[in-house]
Each structure stands twice: as structure tokens, then as C-alpha cells.
């Protein structure tokens, strides 16, 4: 098991290196810079002297390969650089934004799992029934709805019409501020989990080993609990893992909409203002989060199904 874990972790290293290279090159060639973004509201004329000094200070005139080697050297020591915009270390900025994003992602995923998995199970146990149709309508709708639009609808209903929840902001970080953004972000993975669970359970229900279990006189509850659920879990876990990792990227829209102070809104602001160190740092965190979750899921497979670790 240990060698499997080490092998799996080492596999992520080339991915991280490739991501670092791609992000750096990509944002080095896109037009615009922190200097042009400083004046994007047209408030004041660009001061050519300040521009030249900023270029020198930020090393913007250096060739890409020099900037890249300097960036990688710093990164190797855990230094993500200094933000062009805030003039703070990027690690400090990321640290401030990490907890709100994790709160949002965990809350969204909890919502998705608690609603989506049982919904898929119930639908699969009664295929073609009203519950099945309803759950699948919900699932398809959840997958199809744009998060921005859904968020606005939820704001309108639960904040403006019912007055139950605040429509925006982080407040004191309490639950009432978390509900709307978490549900907005969680609907899509919830829908996907419902569909995946339903499909997995339906497939397993017709498998030979389930038929054998039933023919042996095992009760339906035991069949579902010991054979169906356990075997469906691998597929459900895969979906959970992929969705969990992807949520940090998807949080971008939700965080901006709800003024949620996470990594997603930091990323958007940094891209718009061409704050390259902050962009690189934010994307790297998203990628690392995705890889970590997926590695953990892979390790979990190996626990659930020992055949995987020998594959």
C-alpha cells in the first residue's frame, strides 16, 4: 500500500511542473500588463516615468526565460513571489483567501453528497417511478443551470422575497452567509452525483453477483447494503473526487457573485489586473488542490478495492 501511495504521489510531480510552465508562458504572452490595468478606469493619465520605474521594479522588461528561471528558483523554496498589485507576498494573500474557499467547497460538497447520493439511490431502487422521474428532472436541471443565474435566483428568493438569508458577503463567516453560495456551487455536483449514483446502482443491480445473492435468499436490504452499495461506491467516489477538485475552479463565478473572499475571486481580480504572481499562485493552488483530492481518492480506491493497488 505504501509503495502504491508513493508511486501515486510521484506521478503528480510532472503534472505540477507542466502546469507551472504553461501558466507562466501563457500569461507572459497575453497582451496587457499590471501597468496598463492601473489605468483601465481612465482616472488619470499614465505617468511614463512611473511606468518605466515599475517595469524595472517588477522586472517586466526582462526576457521570459530569465523571469521564469527566477520564478522557479523562488517557487522551489516555497516563495510564490510578491503581488504586483498589493505588494504583499502571494503566500500571504493565498493564506487569507484559503479558509473561505475551503469553507465554501466543503459546504457545497456536503450539500451535493447529502442530497445527490440518496436521490440517485432512491431513483435507482424505483426505476420509472415518479420519484425517479422527479429526481432526474432535478438532476438534469441542476446540471444545465448556469451558476450565475441560479445564484441570482436564490438571492432573489431567499434574501429578497423570503428574507431568510443575506444576499451577499462573508459577514462573520457564519452559516447564514455560507448557505446561498454553497447551494449555488453545490447544485451541479449534486445533480451529477444523483445521475452517477443512479446509473451505477442500476448497473450493479443487474450484475450476476447480485442475482446470486438474491437467489441465495439474502434479504433485499442486505443485498443493497453489502453488494450494491459497496460496489457502487467506487464510481461514486470517483465522481466525488473529480467534483471536489473541480469545485475550486468553479467557485470563481460564485465567489464573485456573492462577494465571497476566496481564491476564486482573487484569481479573477488578478487575471483582470494582470497581477502575474498572484495569478500563478492562485492557479497553482487550484491545481494542487485538484491533484491532492484525486490522489486521496485513488488511495481510497485501493482501500475499498485491493485489486486496484496491484493493477
Amino acid at each position, binding site marked *: 500500500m505504501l509503495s502504491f501511495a508513493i508511486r501515486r504521489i510521484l506521478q503528480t510531480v510532472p503534472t505540477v511542473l507542466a502546469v507551472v510552465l504553461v501558466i507562466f508562458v501563457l500569461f507572459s504572452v497575453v*497582451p*496587457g*500588463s499590471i*501597468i*496598463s*490595468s*492601473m*489605468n*483601465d*478606469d*481612465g*482616472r*488619470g*493619465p*499614465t*505617468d*511614463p*516615468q*512611473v*511606468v518605466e*520605474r*515599475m517595469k524595472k*521594479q517588477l522586472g517586466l522588461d526582462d526576457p521570459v526565460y530569465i523571469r521564469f528561471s527566477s520564478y522557479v528558483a523562488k517557487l522551489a523554496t516555497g516563495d510564490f513571489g510578491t503581488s504586483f*498589485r*498589493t*505588494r*504583499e507576498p502571494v503566500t500571504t*494573500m493565498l493564506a*487569507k*483567501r484559503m479558509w473561505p474557499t475551503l469553507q465554501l467547497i466543503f459546504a457545497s460538497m456536503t450539500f451535493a453528497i447529502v442530497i445527490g447520493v440518496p436521490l440517485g439511490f432512491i431513483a435507482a431502487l424505483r426505476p420509472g417511478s415518479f420519484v425517479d422521474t422527479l429526481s432526474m428532472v432535478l438532476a438534469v436541471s441542476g446540471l444545465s443551470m448556469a451558476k450565475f443565474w441560479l*445564484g*441570482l435566483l436564490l*438571492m*432573489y428568493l431567499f*434574501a*429578497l422575497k423570503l*428574507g431568510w438569508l*443575506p*444576499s*451577499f*458577503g*462573508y459577514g462573520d463567516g457564519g452559516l447564514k452567509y455560507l448557505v446561498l453560495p454553497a447551494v449555488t456551487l453545490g447544485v451541479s455536483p449534486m445533480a451529477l452525483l444523483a445521475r452517477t449514483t443512479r446509473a451505477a446502482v442500476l448497473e450493479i443491480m443487474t450484475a450476476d453477483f447480485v442475482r446470486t445473492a438474491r437467489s441465495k435468499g439474502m434479504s433485499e436490504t442486505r443485498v443493497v447494503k453489502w453488494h450494491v452499495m459497496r460496489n457502487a461506491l467506487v464510481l461514486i467516489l470517483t465522481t466525488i473526487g473529480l467534483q471536489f477538485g473541480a469545485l475550486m475552479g468553479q467557485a470563481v463565478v460564485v*465567489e*464573485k*457573485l*456573492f*462577494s*465571497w*473572499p*476566496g481564491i476564486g*475571486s*482573487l484569481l*479573477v*481580480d488578478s487575471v*483582470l*489586473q*494582470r497581477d502575474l504572481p498572484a495569478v500563478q499562485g492562485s492557479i497553482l493552488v487550484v491545481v494542487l488542490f485538484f491533484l491532492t483530492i484525486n490522489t486521496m481518492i485513488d488511495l481510497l480506491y485501493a482501500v475499498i478495492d485491493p485489486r486496484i493497488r496491484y493493477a
Partner: protein
Amino acid sequence: MMFKKIAIVAGLGLALSVTAEAQTPRKGGTIRMTAPYGSSFTSMDIHTTQRAQDEIFAKGLHRSLYIWDSAEGKPVPELAKEAIVSGGGLVYTFKLRDDAYFHHGRKMTADDVIWSYNRIMDGAKAYPGARFVRMIEGASEVEKGKAKEISGLKKIDDFTLEMKLTEKVDPGFYFFTALTSIYPADEGAKDSFIQKPIGLGPFKFVEHVPGSRVVLERFDKFYKPGKPYADKMIVSIMGEAAARDVAFRNKEIDTSVLGPAQYVAYQADPALKGTIVEVAEVFTRYMGINPSFKPFSDKRVRQAINHAIDADLIISKLVKNKAYRATSWLPLTSPAYDKTMKPYAFDPAKAKQLLADAGYPTGFEFEWTASQNESWGLPIVEAIIPMLDRVGIKVKVKQVETAVLAEVARKGEFQAFIYSQATGPDPQAALKCFHSATPQSACNYTAFKNADFDKLLDEAGQTDDAAKRVQLLQKANALLYDEAPVWFFNYNKAVMAVQPWLKGIQLNATELTHQNVEDLWVDETSPAK
């Protein structure tokens, strides 16, 4: 005053502020403002940023030598009690307030002003406020590392400061924004300052949740007796207009900036119509033209473009009347605006004639660089394409991000571009963008060069007679109209929705969201405690 007249004409919400003045301000409560311009606050070190978004909270936290007086439409001394002018208009002796305290309890002195301006001129840090402080003699030497201190700043005593300028300008226009805020010399140098800023403003720092909000609380030792009225001030970042709309209707915020679509919706809603406050801001929207592109080197072609576009139709249909038609460069609220001027008439026949006279009877094609901005970007360009096509001019659109557009303009990498640019409050500074000595990389984006224009502007800079200066600037503005280095589109009408319980809103033509927050107060109907 021109500004007052405009405010009376434009201010649907003026009744709201007039009523406010008639009432006795209530002490206490929380002011909940919004920062609507998309992004997070740049930094708690306000010297590092010139974005409008950041100055919203900085108005609570910091103070500069001058402050913008919205009622008078000009900068007035703030940290100085008076300014004595001598040396042929180049030397200003400021009698500083002796009752201004920093939030950590120490009294402000001339040393703090000198320290702050020296800091801004630190060439290694490239602070954007350097373009203002550079107006002081010896500041450039500090920026270049040739001197440690600005020679043109002299401390006479703790509360008297002498400032020698390099040009005969009104320093009020240079030292009223947060970019030149006065920091405490002892605390400002510490690394912790950026995490817990200290200023001279009416509110002191409580917390900054990056990407979400800044919270400030009343500073009891603020130098204006009885002010600020409110106990607390929260500035929430709300870039999404639709989300801001819900929050405003839900009474979670006290102010919201409205775009064209919301402006129409709020006007049509009886419950919200009374919340609208509007002002002609000192921003001019225009299409900049590159004279190195041969057809644009001919004045008649530039004039033809101004005649070929029905700007009024675009303002009415697309911008939903959230703008005023531009006549020339200087905006309505500029002290040098000439109200007798009429904008270019929409006259396609005349445009065709001008093109024919210029040697382009069948027109020509040009590339137009635009951002996606709804009020002065791609939607506007798309509406103009058929209008120009009618006179034979074809347009190829090049879309770029807003952040890229400024660079395109600065580098002159365009045939034409559409932009929104600050054209005030100082009319002389606004017109200086067309002076031949101003580089394209500064703000002379159309590389305008005209000896008569330069002469007018130079004379305006030299004269001590204010009325004559205005006359000269008006002439320069009229010359620009005739030369048409740009297509004059509109002047921004800033529109804000203000909850009925928030009183004392000022119609600030430099930026409506920038409020002297010590004058704001909330009545007992505010849901925020």
C-alpha cells in the same frame, strides 16, 4: 457656478440631499457603502493605487492637504487652514491644522507631510502619486535618487510648511486625492502599516476581509467637531450589478452604482425612483484617432466622422440617457466648459462632402480597437458601424480587454480606439493631454500637435488672472473641437441609488462614489445598527 447648475438640472436625487441638509444629523448608526468597480481593493497602502475603487474606503481612512468640495466644485484646503501664495504664484505657505490627530493618537505636523511626499517620490517604489508630487521643486531629484529629501518642501515650524512649485498651478488639484494622503512618519515606515493602516480620516481601520469588505469605525479625535456622525462604515466589494441590485432592494446596502439598464429600471419603479442621485462626472468618452494613419491626418476626415455618427441616438437608445452629449473635450462640470458651444451636428451629407473634399469620395477602411464596456465599448462601436458605412467608411473591429486598451492607447498601437478618460477636475491638466510636449505614452494618445493650441495652453498656465485663464482654456477647447482629434461622444452621467435613510450625499463630479463620509449620516429608519 456651472457645477451647481448642472447638479440642479441633473439631480433627481437632489431633493434627497436638500432634505438632508434641512434635518439635524443623527449620531450613530452604520453607513454601508459599496465598491462597485469589479475588483478587490488593491492595497491598504493607498499611496500604491490610483483606482477609483480604492479611494472609496480611503475617504474614510485618510486625508490629504486638500479635499474636493462638491458644492463648490473645486478643491479646498483640508489639512491646511490657509495657503498664502507668494513668489509669483510658485510658493505656497501652508498653515497646517494643529488639531489633526492620527488614529494612533499623535498630532500631525509638517514633518508628516514632508515624510509622506518624500515617500511618494521614492523612485524604487514607483508610487503613482509621484505625478502630482513631482510638481514640487526638487521632487524629481528624489525620484531619480539624486537627493534624499524634496528641496522645495521646507518646515517653518511644526504647523507651517512652505512648498515651492515648478509650475504656476493650483496645488489643490494635485493634492486632494488619496494618492497624496498624509501618513504618520513614525508608523508609515513599518511593515505592519499595510495590514493596519493609520490615517487622519474620520474613521479608523477595524478590518479588511480581502475580496469582501473593509470595516472602519468612528475616530473620536477627528478634527471636525461633532463629526463623523456615524459610528461605523462598511465598504463592501460588489462588482456584479445584478447582485448589487438585489442587495439594495433588500436594504442590505445603502448605496449602489447603476448601469444603463438599471438606471432605466429604477426610473420606472416608483419605489426606487426617489433613490436616484446623478451627476455629470468629469469623464469624456471618445474615439481616439491616430493621425499617422493617412486618412486621419486630414482634419476634414476627422470632422466627417464627427458629422457621420448620430451620437444622440446612441446615447438615448444604447446608453439609456446615462450620459450627456459631448461638445468638445472639457466636460459639463468643468469650470472652463463653454455652454454656448454646440456639438457636431449629425449630418451624413456634410460628412460625405468633407470626405470627398479630403480625397476620399468612396471612403476608406480602418481598424477600431474597443473593449467590451457596455457604455463606451463594443456595443457602441457596433451601432456606429452602419452609420459610418453610410458615408463610405468601413470599420474592422479589434476587441481587447479593458486592461489592454490603456496599453494600446499609450503605445499608439491603433488606428482608432474608444475610451473613457478623466477630463477634470483641473481643465488645464485635462487639456494638457493635447499639448505637443505631452508624450503619447502619458495621455496625448492621439499624438496631437498644434502650435496655436500649445500657445493658448502656455498662456493659460502663465496668467495670474483667473478669468483670463478660463477664457484661454475655452479657446483651446474650441480649437480642439475644430481640429477634431477625436470623435466627441459623451460625458459620463454617474448614477447612484441611495437609500432614503442615508443623508448628506454629495454630488461629486470627480467620482460620485467618493464621498466625504464625515458629512454622511443615517436616520433611525436604517436597518443597520
